[in-house]
């Protein structure tokens, strides 16, 4: 998280943290383990009232940011979501709202309003069945037929697919990409739940079998959505990284506290040099994760030329080094660290989830190699 927040940002972050403390303490997360949606409508509306879903939307559509850079503000919410392992489709709802605001014209005003109030939830379908679950392999067919579009294909994993009222679907039209906002109850859409590593985040397989919707549900122009899809993926990475860093922060704080409180051979764990040195390494990874996450978010928010590079650095670094940090926190706890009873796994799960979606560390390292090759003129 950013080192220097404005007083408005700090108030917003703190209000979010308090609401999460109140509504989704760890006991509630454990209860939601058995809940089909993983979050309650009342909870989501309370957050929407605070502004969780409005930050990427322009003022003329009822949105608005705290600082002028909505993505930076949203990253503060995401960070607190990570710190609390909080439920709810934060990234996807915001991404869809932003795209409808930017590329949808005025015909989606009603949908945007529903999303901003928390009355409705939207999700985004990008990835497809393995091996087409990478960032750059969209195959779902979007065909224009007169004043309709026809969708055929399968999206997975789709976050909150079983709960969402609207599905923003990225598909292929000829050699270009298209995006269509499909109401969840459209004929031909079938949703089946998947297993997920997270306690409260739910994912689905969503199949589109000759799904027909009016042409005006295409967001932007058919075949011309590649730039918007890339922007959405960048936002997903930024939000996911901020959340992952929040989860790392809580795990690290819990483990430092444990090291002071836990005694072996008559002395606290924190007095053993071997462990102290590992804590030092972990803190360097944690602070570097904060640093790359914030840099990537700021670069994307301001449209900086190095945004793509910083986003891939953040995703790859936080995935790899954050994973090592989380597992070392487990190791420091010993046996209790691998039980369901201990809270540590709630944060380990959230980090693990975010590591694997929107590009694995390896995929982002491959993107970085492309960028280096291009920059150095080695291609």
């Amino acid at each position, binding site marked *: 998280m950013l*080192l220097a927040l404005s007083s408005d940002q700090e108030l917003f972050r703190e209000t979010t943290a308090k609401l999460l403390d109140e509504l989704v303490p760890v006991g509630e997360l454990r209860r939601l383990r058995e809940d089909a949606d993983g979050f309650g409508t009342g909870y989501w509306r309370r957050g929407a009232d605070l502004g969780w879903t409005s930050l990427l939307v322009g003022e003329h559509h009822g949105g608005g940011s705290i600082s002028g850079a909505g993505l930076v503000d949203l990253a503060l919410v995401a960070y607190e979501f990570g710190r609390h392992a909080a439920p709810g489709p934060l990234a996807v709802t915001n991404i869809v709202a932003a795209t409808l605001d930017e590329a949808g014209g005025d015909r989606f005003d009603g949908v945007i309003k529903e999303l901003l109030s928390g009355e409705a939830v939207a999700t985004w379908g990008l990835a497809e069945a393995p091996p087409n679950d990478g960032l750059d392999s969209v195959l779902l067919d979007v065909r224009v037929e007169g004043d309709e579009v026809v969708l055929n294909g399968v999206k997975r994993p789709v976050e909150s697919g079983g709960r969402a009222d609207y599905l923003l679907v990225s598909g292929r039209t000829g050699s270009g990409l298209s995006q269509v906002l499909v109401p969840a109850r459209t004929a031909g859409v079938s949703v089946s739940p998947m297993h997920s590593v997270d306690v409260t985040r739910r994912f689905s397989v969503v199949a589109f079998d000759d799904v027909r919707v009016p042409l005006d549900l295409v967001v932007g122009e058919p075949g011309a959505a590649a730039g918007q899809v890339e922007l959405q993926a960048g936002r997903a990475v930024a939000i996911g990284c901020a959340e992952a860093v929040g989860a790392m922060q809580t795990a690290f704080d819990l483990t430092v506290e444990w090291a002071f409180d836990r005694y072996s051979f008559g002395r*606290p764990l924190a007095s053993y040099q071997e462990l102290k040195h590992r804590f*030092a390494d972990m803190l360097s990874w944690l602070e570097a994760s904060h*640093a790359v996450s914030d840099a990537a978010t700021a670069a994307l928010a301001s449209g900086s030329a190095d945004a793509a590079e910083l986003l891939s650095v953040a995703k*790859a670094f936080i995935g790899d*080094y954050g994973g090592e940090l989380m597992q070392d926190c487990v190791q420091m706890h010993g046996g209790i660290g691998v039980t369901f009873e201990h809270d540590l796994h709630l944060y380990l799960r959230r980090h693990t989830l975010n590591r694997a979606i929107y590009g694995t560390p390896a995929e*982002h*390292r491959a993107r970085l190699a492309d960028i*280096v*090759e291009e920059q150095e003129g080695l291609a």
Partner: protein
Amino acid sequence: MSSTGTEDLEAFRRRARDFARANLGPASARTAAGALRNDRTDEEELAEVAREREVQRMLFDAGLAGICLPTEYGGQGLTLAHQRALNEELAGYEFPTRFQAPTLSPCAAVLLDFGTEEQKRRHIPAILKGEELWMQFLSEPSGGSDVAGALTSAVRDGDEWVLNGSKIWTTGAWWSDWGLCLARTNWDVPKHRGLTVFIFPIRQEGIDVHRIEMLNGSKEFCQEFMTDVRVPDSDRVGDVDDGWTVGTRWMFHERMLTNSPLVTVPVGFGHGGTGVSSLVAIGARDAGRLSEPVVRDLVGEARMLDIADRELRHRVGQGIATGVMVDQSAALTRLFSGVTATRIRTIGFEVVGTAGAAWTDEDGQLAHSADDYLMRQVSQIGGGTTEMARNVVSERVLGMPRERSLDRDVPFRDVPRGRPSSRS
């Protein structure tokens, strides 16, 4: 100039850009490598030093030296934002790297913190004009990390001090001008309480500079032998026997290194930027292996680490400057930089394949990867080992219990010292 007297950032940036275009040559690939390499003659090195003095003087004359240093000592009295703008505008150009660390930080930084008015007025402008290159006379052969255990002695003789002993791991002492030296002035008190800091010219009778050959043939590092070196009391920095107060700040500035607001580092330079990971990619290209997926994964990792290192420096620099982080957090960047640099060197060696073992003069970037690999641990040793940094982070940042030491509350002369190595 705006009405507040601080130069407008954009005007400053234009001024820096115009200066660089008109006066500076391109950065050499060697500068970008930032590694200790044995790839030039003494004559070439001295020519580089002379050119850097010249460029430093040009920067001074153009009002581009000492951006964050006070104007009364020849600096510009501007902000960190101006320094960052200069770093950006100098990207890709030659710049006086030898004047940055250790000359400006930690040496000039220590003078600013603890020097007398006379010392500051004499030396800071001279440094900014390219007239004085400084070295740290800090580590000793008897122990690298335990700097407070210094054995170099200073004995008072009227208005002077007489110094005897040996210092080691000074980069380029053979072409440097002044030394900042930690010496023992009291052997009857615990080790941290009997130290004093002095400054003196390096080229003088009584100081014998010996060049150490590193395992790759580089002779950048030196050891100095001091025999009855006389230093006037006016060249003492800080109070007598209070050298550890100075030393603590000294080491803070050392850990800040290129992250210090006093230091100019063009964006992309060495491991302060993305220079090293670019060299990894160029090495892979020269070896014809850049298209291999495994190699691309490693190239991506190198770039990831380079940028993570840079962003961590920004964060910690900002954290310390704003008081959100304690000063000792500088050890975080020292630790992270050291560890990531060794990893990037290993990657650089891996991606060139067999050429890492045997190469020809025509092999381009391949030629250096083995040497860089052999010297890889330097980044975790020089400037305080990463083990020491881990102690600082865990004890001073996280507040964990300190390591037991046997020298804390006994007179220094009674501290057990071990046997001198039979090989040294």
